[in-house]
């Protein structure tokens, strides 16, 4: 993919960061709004797609490290699992942090408990995974320069 014109790149510079902020907002308010981890993560991952379209594959591939997204994915998954596992003396997935609404002085937050944390973990996971999907699929296009498929060593063809 070739980089687009200077107009697009400038707009990308200006607005791309707002997408991340918006995504984080959606992600963190997942427990009270119709948003949540997946939606927020998908919005943040749009940032990667945006960069790819505006700046072209070569530059993004040089700058972006796939290991970072791998790390995001792993941290999200493991945090999610640990949060679910911590409810174990009662049940798996039990919301052990939640308190009844009446006990708390201020609003909704204490009633939420692990749901908000889980939604953040899912958001991290989806960010990493979707960005990885986008980058990997872009790497797989190779529309003009056809490279041979990497050969596996195990079986003869």
């Amino acid at each position: 993919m070739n980089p687009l014109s200077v107009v697009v790149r400038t707009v990308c510079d200006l607005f791309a960061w707002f997408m991340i902020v918006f995504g984080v907002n959606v992600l963190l308010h997942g427990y009270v709004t119709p948003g949540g981890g997946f939606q927020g993560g998908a919005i943040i991952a749009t940032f990667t797609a945006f960069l790819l379209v505006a700046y072209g594959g070569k530059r993004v591939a040089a700058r972006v490290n796939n290991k970072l997204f791998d790390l995001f994915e792993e941290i999200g998954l493991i945090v999610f699992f640990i949060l679910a596992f911590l409810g174990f003396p009662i049940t798996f997935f039990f919301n052990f942090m939640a308190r009844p609404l009446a006990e708390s002085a201020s609003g909704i937050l204490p009633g939420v408990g692990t749901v908000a944390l889980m939604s953040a973990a899912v958001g991290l996971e989806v960010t990493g995974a979707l960005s990885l999907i986008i980058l990997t699929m872009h790497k797989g296009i190779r529309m003009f320069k056809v490279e041979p498929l990497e050969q596996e060593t195990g079986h003869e063809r």
Partner: protein
Amino acid sequence: MIANAPFLLVGLLFLGGMIAIFMEKNLVKIAIAISVIGSSVNLFLVALGYRNGGTVPIHYMAGENTVMVLPTPQAMTLTAIVIALATTALLLSLIMLVYRHYGTLDIDEIRRLRG
């Protein structure tokens, strides 16, 4: 009668997707048809949970109005959307691999495994 309009649309979308699977030969178009079928099913689920005059099923946002739409079908729809995203990404990746191996997207020519 007008309350049944979403279900009519669901039927139309489902049939359209199904017809497209059989009429189209291009794998990418078939992938689009499968996405259309998935969307029609999601619409079906959301339409199931609607109550007349209902609001968002979130306690502090619903306000005075106590009639809420059913939250369970919405949760189901969200899950189905996530699954549909995963399958679409996988399907498109597989299509890319097929194109690189076979050099074509015509589904009638991708038939080394038969008999």
